[in-house]
């Protein structure tokens, strides 16, 4: 038992909770801010051969604060016929699902928010809560654009929830546990044909599942090419059309924080999580190094998400559903069958 856990163990329940809530807030907001600045502002600008924000702070690094300040100043407008309670609550439901998602992501042998046997199962269950928030936003706005966007989002998110979960099952079968820490340890202590130099990151054995997970994740995040729900050229801004000021900002934070958290889950499942090849995963140094390693992996995976987002044009609704039901789900089921057979055989 390492020192950090002992310190945490001596605190009373409310102190531990306070630390965890603070760390969770920091994790969500810092990751969202990093991703927005690094990917949305800078790398995407470079992909379009421009510089992005350059005026606010050195290399535009304070642009995000300026944007947040702008959103906070704006009037919080409610449409006249809106269902006020549902309309007001929707962004919080979406953001809540993000905050609950970050809870299962481990950052080191002792650096975790909760360590439950349900782990990835909890994450998958909580991630579907955001559908309700989006449907609330679409319905509560009393606007045809929001309604259509909300319905599209619901259809899309439910369709892509399935390949996402089915892709995870392959990993769970191979690791033999749904505990996120257990999955990390299974990869760190695994071996490739008896050679354990880099452990056994499941991207090697579960490459198909990784691809399915990344595609389904892109759709779950409603990032282009799966941005039918907020298709700005046909639906203004989809379910976010009627939102302004703070509540729009909450949707915005939710979108990018969820991108980071889903990438973190993908990193845990397929890239070995916080573990580093060559360092004993139980070493206390991993509690410091682990979160950094996780951050690097998150940035790397979200880069792929944003790269695809700014490269591909939008899917049509029927193409989008066909990809989920006719390609990804059968592929994920076949992956489960093959993984199960190989697991029994070896």
């Amino acid at each position: 038992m390492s020192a950090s856990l002992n310190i945490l163990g001596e605190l009373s329940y409310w102190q531990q909770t306070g630390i965890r809530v603070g760390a969770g807030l920091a994790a969500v907001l810092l990751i969202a801010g990093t991703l927005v600045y690094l990917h949305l502002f800078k790398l995407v600008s470079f992909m379009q051969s421009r510089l992005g924000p350059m005026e606010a702070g050195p290399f535009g690094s304070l642009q995000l604060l300026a944007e947040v300040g702008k959103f906070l100043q704006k009037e919080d407008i409610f449409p006249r016929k809106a269902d006020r309670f549902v309309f007001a609550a929707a962004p919080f439901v979406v953001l809540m699902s993000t905050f609950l998602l970050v809870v299962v992501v481990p950052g080191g042998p002792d650096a975790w928010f909760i360590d439950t046997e349900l782990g990835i199962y909890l994450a998958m269950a909580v991630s579907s809560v955001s559908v309700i928030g989006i449907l609330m936003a679409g319905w509560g706005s009393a606007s045809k654009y929001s309604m259509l966007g909300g319905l599209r989002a619901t259809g899309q998110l439910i369709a892509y929830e399935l390949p996402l979960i089915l892709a995870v099952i392959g990993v769970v079968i191979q690791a033999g546990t749904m505990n996120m820490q257990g999955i990390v340890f299974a990869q760190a202590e695994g071996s490739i044909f008896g050679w354990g130099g880099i452990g056994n990151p499941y991207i090697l054995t579960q490459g198909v599942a990784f691809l399915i997970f990344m595609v389904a994740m892109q759709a779950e995040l409603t990032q282009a090419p799966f941005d039918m729900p907020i298709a700005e050229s046909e639906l203004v801004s989809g379910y976010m059309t009627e939102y302004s000021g703070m509540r729009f900002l909450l949707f915005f934070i939710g979108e990018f924080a969820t991108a980071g958290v889903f990438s973190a889950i993908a990193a845990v499942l397929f890239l070995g999580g916080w573990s580093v090849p060559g360092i004993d995963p139980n070493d206390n140094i991993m509690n410091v190094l682990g979160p950094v390693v996780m951050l690097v992996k998150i940035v790397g995976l979200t880069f792929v998400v944003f790269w695809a987002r700014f490269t591909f044009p939008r899917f049509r609704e029927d193409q989008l559903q066909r990809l989920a039901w006719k390609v990804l789900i059968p592929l994920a089921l076949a992956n489960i069958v093959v993984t199960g057979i190989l697991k029994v055989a070896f």
Partner: protein
Amino acid sequence: MGLVPGLIKGLGVTGGTMLRTIFPDGWKKPIPNPVKGAETVQYPHEKEAPPARARGVIALHEENCTACMLCARECPDWCIYIEGHKEKAPPRRAGGKPRKVNAIDRFDIDFALCMFCGICVDVCPFDALFWSPEYEFSEPRIADLLHDKSRLSEWMETVPEFEPYEAGSEAKVKKVPAT
């Protein structure tokens, strides 16, 4: 091209542009320098020289104007306001009758209405209107965008010298304007 190679090629285009922007000097000197690599310029700090025939603002060569009103009539936005009066001018030949010429009292272009179509420049039969590549004439008050004839004449200084047409184009050009 198949589906997957097409997708990968698309990623290659955006990724390649990103790398070219970050590392403009190529891989022999991999120093990140996006300011050099980007195609854009940071406008208030550095300015792009507009091309000589850029359509920035319309300049008036006052002596050539006869207040014929063709430009004002052809203007789709009705943003040109002309008032003039008849004047006696000295006769062409000695002992002749004094000529009557039009003199302009007012020649205003409201650049708040103007859509920079350039029809007025095209229709002017006396070469009184010219395109100037100058583009920085925004104003805090919208009324100040109404440029009167003295302001429009000032823009004449920024009109570039007439560039001769390419060799062989005389056959197509009916009349080469003289500046």
